[in-house]
């Protein structure tokens, strides 16, 4: 049996720098930071008091209030992004085979806010313990894919991938492989996260993972800068419609790009720290490039994991230099987390969207907030500091790495018949 080809035919995004794909992308290219003081809760006593929140969002403009209140924000974000992507893909409701349409979503944590609220209030005033009947279905991490399948009637494969900050990339990989194997024609994939909550910020603060640059939130996420001091927590997500090529052609769909390969690996080293020499990062890029059936020299752009942590950034760079050799200095590299913050389980989705748009528009979005070179980072690398760069982007690679040592990478290519 021959493998099917997989193309991208729709996208939606709800991010700290824009609540739809056009706004998200134009702000990435313009180098806009999404960081600002936290509004989701009173963070006054927290070590970190800023984050990259989704802004100006009235959920009821998208989802009736009665439905929305039965969804944790991470599911609301999934619905809003998926609605945009479904509209963009423009399926014909009368002819789409719903049994061959799936939802494979990614989220690292799930309904954290729901969990917090229920646990903090279950026994107010010493009452008999009471939990809301929607607590469990709202909180469990798979609720987002369940809600999406109900919303669009998609009766094919349906689940959530969980691999911390690689979650959405794993979702894209599973969706890609199932379509490649002919098990479904269409899949809503991507991921979302809503962890700008008391426990999310407090928990990452306890790990000393977050930037504490409270006096300058918008310059806090500074991947590869000498003075980076941790990541900036982000929220939101993106939906990517993956479709079997012949299915897309038959209905005359607009094709953004082709997904040509994917890689996975594990550091097998430490539950939170990345391997110091970037071993897992090296293996995942090697696996992705081999799976795509291309030569490393064909990669034009890498959207890195690059979270702006002191130890995380250099190990990925070391792996890039080791894997790509001299080509490491020809391709462009950027971390869009400098603008969006780190969406955890949703990161792979918005960064895949950034790669796809980079291919579509032939421009590499920047790594903003570069002030001081880090002697650990080779200055020959084109890290696309501070300003977007017009260049040929035929093939782009997106890396994501998660706590637990999970590494996942995906490869997109300009579509050619």
């Amino acid at each position, binding site marked *: 049996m021959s493998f099917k080809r997989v193309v991208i035919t729709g996208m939606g995004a709800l991010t700290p720098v824009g609540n739809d794909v056009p706004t998200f992308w134009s702000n990435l290219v313009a180098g806009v930071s999404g960081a600002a003081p936290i509004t989701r809760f009173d963070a006054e006593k927290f070590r970190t008091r800023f984050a990259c929140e989704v802004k100006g969002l009235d959920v009821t403009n998208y989802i009736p209030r009665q439905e929305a209140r039965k969804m944790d924000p991470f599911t609301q974000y999934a619905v809003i992004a998926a609605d945009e992507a479904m509209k963009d893909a423009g399926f014909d409701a009368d002819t789409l085979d719903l049994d061959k349409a799936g939802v494979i979503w990614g989220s690292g944590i799930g309904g954290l806010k729901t969990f917090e609220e229920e646990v903090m209030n279950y026994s107010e005033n010493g009452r008999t313990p009471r939990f809301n*009947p929607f607590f469990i279905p709202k909180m469990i991490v798979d609720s987002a894919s369940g809600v999406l399948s109900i919303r669009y009637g998609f009766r094919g494969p349906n689940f959530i991938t969980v691999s911390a900050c690689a979650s959405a990339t794993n979702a894209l990989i599973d969706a890609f492989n199932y379509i490649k194997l002919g098990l479904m024609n269409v899949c809503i994939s991507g991921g979302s996260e809503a962890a700008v909550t008391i426990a999310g910020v407090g928990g990452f603060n306890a790990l000393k993972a977050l930037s504490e640059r409270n006096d300058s939130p918008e310059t806090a996420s500074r991947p590869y800068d000498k003075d980076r001091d941790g990541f900036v927590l982000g929220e939101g997500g993106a939906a990517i419609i993956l479709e079997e090529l012949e299915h897309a052609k038959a209905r005359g769909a607009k094709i953004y790009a082709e997904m040509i390969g994917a890689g996975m690996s594990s550091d097998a080293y430490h539950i939170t720290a990345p391997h110091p020499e970037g071993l897992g990062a090296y293996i995942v890029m090697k696996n992705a490039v081999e799976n795509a059936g291309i030569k490393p020299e064909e990669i034009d752009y890498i959207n890195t994991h690059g979270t702006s942590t002191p130890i995380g950034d250099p190990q990925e760079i070391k792996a890039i230099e080791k894997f790509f050799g001299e080509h490491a200095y020809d391709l462009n590299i950027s971390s869009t987390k400098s603008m969006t913050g780190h969406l955890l389980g949703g990161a792979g989705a918005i960064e895949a969207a950034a790669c796809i748009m980079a291919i579509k528009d032939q421009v590499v979005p920047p790594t903003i907030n570069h002030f001081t070179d880090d002697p650990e980072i080779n200055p020959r690398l084109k890290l696309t500091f501070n300003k977007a760069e017009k260049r040929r982007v035929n093939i782009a690679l997106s890396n994501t790495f998660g706590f637990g040592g999970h590494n996942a990478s995906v490869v997109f290519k300009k579509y050619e018949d």
Partner: protein
Amino acid sequence: MSAIAERVKQIIVEKLGVEESEVTPEANFQNDLGADSLDTVELIMEFEKEFNLSIPDDQAENIGTVGQAVAYLEENVK
């Protein structure tokens, strides 16, 4: 309408997203107001919170309509 009935009506309108005019004493949460069994459990919880009392499960099972809720609360709210 009693003060209790008015508060019950507001809770139902808020939670089930129905019009005030639909919230008649005879209206059944599930058959008339679009609630499912989980919505009904949540409504009972809201009544408990609003009126600061505990409704035992065997009593809650008998509350299926707006009128039954109001009658139970009028009898039990101190």
